[in-house]
């Protein structure tokens, strides 16, 4: 059975011109004999499990043996012992789809002009035909919480699926948090920096600007509620959810002073803050805990904030925050083409997790930090992020522990539709394997080790 399965994976060596989005799930699927991580908080993994899904939703799951009547007789059965099933991973605080080639300005739609552009939404311009998402899918990343960039108020983040023909197909939630970049509170003393006094003035100017903007928005929203005939201000209108405390404010802040100031600012206004970045969060963990503020750690593959911080200060940051009672999600913090580093970053965070009674199972906690928690952050936790009957069948089948560097994604489904796991890399590889074969028509058997991670064939529609 297993052999048949793997054999089925290892055929397609030829490039496709492009990856075809999956149609809605037509046939029920049952995956059997896998290690299953539901990513539900506190729920241990099941060493030998089955899971079935149809019409894009998870139907049932459990420990083997699977009851005979648990799956439709016509279901596609994938028997994958030794493999691992998890929810699809999330690329959090990401620009995936918003930019193709970082240094080619024409391909960059991350940033709108000016400092306050609350009215824009990431969902608008995530390019469905970008070459980048298929690469991310090969790292198990099936969802993205896409952030617009730039300015002080960058715009609205959007929750997106990484499959679909159009941007609309892909959008799960357009208003998934307001991105705010908090100004530097501390004065930088480096030689290149402007004098401290000047920096303080600049900071105060920016803080006042932020307050003016949100004061005006609140006043406008109250006025418009009272008088719907009032002219519509696109910027302020987009803030209704934020002001009502429904849509979170995703505050980009790394220095302890930034974090502290941002949290207190949001608390004063009754907004729901989320700290994104969070390098210095441990220094102000009390204020985070007091206000129950979650943190999106923007990658552990970052240098420590300060010279005196330990070499593992960032590696261990997610786990330390978790142990301190903070709800943490982990983003790659990397450029969109390199989102695929996320699983290994999670693994590194596990490796450096401190032994702490508050964090018994670091692996499970970090898996939650790349699945369950980011889905909640994106406002779609009820539908995505965990493997629970009734939720979206957004599932990855891994060759092993998802956090190990050698693990590859065997198959993946978004809302039950199976992803085409081909990508630009595989196409280019296949093309130049062809060159090698042409130049060496009879390759010797011992020319090199066998290629074990061939891309799977696209599922037949």
């Amino acid at each position, binding site marked *: 059975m297993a052999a048949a399965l793997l054999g089925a994976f290892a055929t397609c060596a030829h490039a496709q011109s492009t990856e075809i989005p999956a149609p809605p799930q037509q046939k029920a699927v049952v995956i059997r004999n896998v290690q299953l991580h539901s990513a539900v908080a506190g729920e241990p993994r099941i060493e030998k499990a089955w899971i079935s899904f149809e019409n894009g939703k998870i139907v049932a799951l459990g420990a083997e043996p699977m009851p005979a009547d648990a799956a439709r007789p016509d279901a596609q059965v994938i028997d994958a012992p030794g493999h691992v099933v998890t929810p699809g991973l999330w690329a959090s605080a990401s620009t995936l789809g918003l930019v*193709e*080639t*970082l*240094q*080619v*300005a024409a391909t960059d739609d991350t940033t709108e002009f000016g400092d306050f552009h609350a009215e824009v939404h990431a969902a608008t311009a995530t390019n469905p035909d970008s*070459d980048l998402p298929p690469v991310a899918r090969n790292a198990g990343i099936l969802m993205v919480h896409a952030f617009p960039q730039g300015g002080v108020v960058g715009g609205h983040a959007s929750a997106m699926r990484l499959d679909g023909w159009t941007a609309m197909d892909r959008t799960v939630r357009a208003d998934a948090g307001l991105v705010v*970049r908090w100004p*530097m509170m*501390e004065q*930088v*003393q*480096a*030689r*290149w*920096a*402007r004098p401290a006094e000047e920096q303080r003035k600049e900071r105060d100017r920016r803080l006042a600007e932020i307050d003016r903007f949100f004061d005006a928005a609140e006043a406008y929203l109250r006025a418009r509620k009272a008088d719907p005939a009032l002219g519509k201000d696109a910027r302020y209108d987009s803030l209704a959810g934020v002001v009502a405390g429904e849509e979170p404010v995703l505050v*980009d802040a*790394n*220095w*302890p*002073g930034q974090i*502290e100031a941002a949290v207190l600012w949001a608390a004063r206004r009754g907004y729901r803050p989320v700290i994104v970045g969070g*390098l*210095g969060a441990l*220094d102000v963990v009390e204020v985070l805990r007091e206000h129950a503020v979650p943190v999106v750690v*923007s990658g552990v*593959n*970052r*240098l*420590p*904030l*300060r*010279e*005196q911080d*330990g*070499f*593992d200060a960032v590696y261990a940051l997610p786990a330390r925050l978790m142990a301190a009672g903070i709800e943490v999600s982990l983003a790659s913090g990397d*450029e969109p*083409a*390199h989102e695929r580093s996320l699983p*290994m970053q999670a*693994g*590194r965070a596990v*490796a450096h997790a401190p032994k702490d009674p508050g964090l018994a199972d670091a692996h499970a906690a970090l898996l939650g930090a790349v699945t369950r928690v980011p889905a909640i952050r994106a406002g779609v936790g009820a539908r995505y992020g965990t493997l629970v009957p009734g939720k979206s069948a957004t599932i990855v089948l891994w060759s092993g522990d998802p*956090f*190990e*560097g*050698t693990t590859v994604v065997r198959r993946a489904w978004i809302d039950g539709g199976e992803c085409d796991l081909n990508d*630009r*890399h595989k196409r*280019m*590889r296949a093309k*130049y394997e062809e*060159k*090698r074969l042409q130049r060496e028509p009879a390759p010797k058997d011992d*020319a090199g*080790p066998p*290629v074990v*991670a061939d891309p799977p064939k696209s599922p037949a529609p």
Partner: protein
Amino acid sequence: MTRSPCRPRAIIRASLTVLSAGAVSLSALAQQGPPVAMRPVDVRRDALVNVSVVATPGERLADAVVVMKDGWIERVGARGSFELPAGTTVHDGGGATVYAGFIDACVRVDSASAAKAAAGEAAAHWNTRVTPQVRAADLPALTTDQRKALRDIGFTAAAVRPNAGIFRGSGQVVLLGDDPRAARTVQEDAGTDVAFETTGGRPDEDDPEAWNRATYPGALIGSIALVRQTFADAAWHAACAETWARNPAGNDPPVQSNALAALGRTVHGMQRVWFDASDERNLLRADAVAREHRLDAGFIGSGREYRALAEVKATGRPVIVPLDLPRTPDVATPRAIEAVPLRDLAHWALAPTNLAELLRAGVPAAASTVRLREPGAFAKAARRAIDAGTTVDEMLAALTVHPARMLGIEGIAGQVRPGHLANLVVVDGPLFGEDMKVRETWIAGLRHESEPRSKFPLKGTYALGTPDAAWQPAGDATELVIDPDAKSIAFRGAKEKPGAAGERPADAPAPREGDGANDGRAAGEQRRDGRGARAESVSFEDNRAGFTVDGKSFGAEGTLRGSVVVGRTGAQVTLLRADGAAIRWTLKPSDRTGDVPDAKKEREARMAEAGGTAPADPAALRAKVAATLAAIPRTTPLADFGIEKPFAPKAVLVEGATVWTAAKDGIVPDCDVLVQDGKITAVGKGLRATLAKSGLEGVHVVDGTGKHVTPGLVDCHSHTGIDGGVNEWTQNVTAEVRIQDAVNAEDVDWYRQLAGGLTAANQLHGSANPIGGQNSVVKLRWGEHAAAFPVKGAIPGIKFALGENVTRSKKRYPSSRLGVETLIRDRFQSAREWREAGARWNALPAAERTRAMPPRPDLELEALAEILEGKRLVHCHSYRQDEIAMLLRLADDFGFRVGTLQHVLEGYKVADDIARHGAGASSFSDWWAYKMEVMDAIPWNGQMLWKAGVVTSFNSDSDELARRMNTEATKAVKYGGVPREEAIKFVTINPARQLRIDAMTGSLEPGKDADFAVWSADPLSTYATCLETWVDGVRRFDRAEDARMRARDAQTRAALVELAAGDWGKDGGGDAGGAGRGRRGRGADPGGAPGAPGAPPVDSIRSGSLLARMLGTRDDYLMEQVRSGMDPWSVRPGECGCDQIDSWNAIFEATSGEGGAR
């Protein structure tokens, strides 16, 4: 050549023969105009009596007499030991102390216009920053104010030095008096000044057109290269001149060069070079240049020399030490404390000890005002240095005998001796004590009072009798305090006892109305009646003082005008109302009841009462400071995670580990590694048995059970630990620059990388020009200074670059991939021809060689010729297959083999060509899509190259990624299934092979250096953590040790924060601010980069100018980096590449930019 700290003897003697006949030379004014009336006859014989004389540090003569004649000291002795010659003007020193006049060995004057003029001469150097022909005589004289400011500290002579450029020109020693006789030059030659100044890659502010010519050097490496080339040129120029003089026939005359000619004496060791050593690392770099060119050198230091004391001492050269103390770090809030690295805290604490440490180590050191924003801060800094343990004698020596010797004037200055210049400083109170006052200086026998003392005869507290009053004064002002020195007059009520607690001092503001009734302070305090009043607008003349005072204190409306008129028998004190009515007191000398109250003591007493804290007992404070300073672990580097003493056992035995040999044995379970004297001596099972004879005596045993051991990881593409810019991008070919000149061993990222198992790195120049600079192959010997980092015996290399980065500028050659090839070919051809010409000259018979002009040394062509000779490896940044193939073809044509192709992300497309040529491939594991030329990059690249037989490695090109190279190797397994024992080679023996250091490191085999890492698990697993890292058998990282160091640093930090928050911090700082900081060695840059000392301050740059706009953009860019979570010290202006981007954007309207080197 001896490294005597003094100037070459011949020059000293020459100056003495002129100068010690000073009676003549100093008394006549050569350029005196004809007298307009009577011819003046100047009787200049003065004696200072009633003084103690410190003739030289440690030699004090109490109650002495100093006789000066015609500007020279004639006699020094105890009072009464000789008779004063007739005609001597006697000056009563009033018990003051006389020291030799201080000598400032470095006072910088603005030489920008002189340099500009020199750069514009017909025979000027091609680089506008090379103007050694500027002479002190071309410089503006010190202004009256500058002289006075220096005199007020006690300086009587100064070496005046030019401040602009790299080769700045030569200085001279002048006297600091105002009279021309006391302001002349006493040493024509104070040496020539050189600074590693950079442009930061910017064009001149007003001359953007000239950017290509003027911007070199943009980085420290370029600056050092230019200095080296210029010294080589100067020696060559001198040789040409000699040859020409011997044999003009048939030869071309030597190149006309004012600059090179001006350096002729220097390169022959006859003129000292003063290097601007803007931090201790630049000092050692300057020393290396001086050694290479056999220069007589000294350093204008930074105040940070204590950080590398042994190394500074080993140079054997003198140091001019700025008393440039950092400000007390902000420790007011937890946020502020978190932001200060230990490096800065420790520097703040230890900087005041720098001078003493140098002197105690035997380094000739002169204390100077150089780098101080205000010379006035000098006295405060000196006092702080003394409080921190510098002895008065040490300070005095650093101000007199040491600078005199450094400047070659020790025969005439620096001591109070007959035959020396009559340069004296007369001081009240202990030298640089809190109450010290420089009363006067004598320069060439002429007196300069620091603050002309008032001749007003009354000073002290006087009882006021009953006034003769036109109205009834409201209060009973019963005392008048007159202090002509402080220009103050105050009335006080009788109930205020002088010096009593709670009393308002003479200099406190006048109390407001109602102040006296109840000022809210503690009960029992003296009630104040409000009669006190401080006079305003006080002026003193010889016998009169005028002032105004608030009438309220005297029951009058408005302001009263007052005067004190001193007559023959007494004084009249008058207060005049607006209507002319007056109050009058008469003072007699007998009314004097006491001295002027000591404002400071009163203030302290008041503070003590108000705040409850007694003013710190100075002795106790000094003891506390001394104890805290002594407790700072003197680590290398002196910073977080610094090493006190590296752990270097004689032998190490790792037992029972899984050993990844990266050699033919592959991965061996349950295996031992034996290390002796830094080398691996055995790898195998049961090695303990082989030690049977000697046993485990002295052997450090590492229990490897459950652990894995790999060779130390090797990173073939690093930019870590490079000071002052990785890119000398300002020219398209910069083969002359060397990263080895700018290695920074103190970069904490080295330590962080050791914590990831890395032990060796290839420090590469950036990729902004087709032929970049020479690389540096180092081992991560954290805890040592930079000199210990290079791998001895590594074959040198050089960085080349192709593609988008080097063609980005569309206004210089090359602007397309077409020109990249032709440019490189042209330079190789040039190098070949240059080498051939040199060989022809060398082959000449000796006699003929002296007649033929020698070939010019050329550091750039030399490096390129070495490539052609196979002595230097090319490491070429490359992406696209066409450019890769181009380079291989080019190399084949010139007959050399490319060392490595760096990045080589399309290498998989031409893997066969690369394999055939034999170049190594040093690639990213899986980066792509950040620019057009990497859109086809694929993570199978490494595997496909490896499979084609190319020696393949994965590199970091990142301070951060270099911390986890083990899991980069993992990706060779993931993408393409490279076997694990081969994958580990991608980050060990393969990069070692590429760098040709594989005989020393990169695998675990007997005979190799003991470079290895111990891992908690399979090193290719994400879950593996590095437990310990060894380099040459020395443990450079260890998790337990790391924990100990964190605790140690936290403790030091706490002690220093406490010190900074206390009295020592309050009184604390100097005026240096952030200058001299910088862990990346931006340090106190010698200038050039705006915002750095020595360069125009940023605020002086014209607002709205191109440069201002560029700097603004740069600052915003850098600030954004910090805002988003980067350590401010990791943000490297000029190194992040943003400078380039800005320059290019601003000047060429380029549409896109790229940072760093990838």
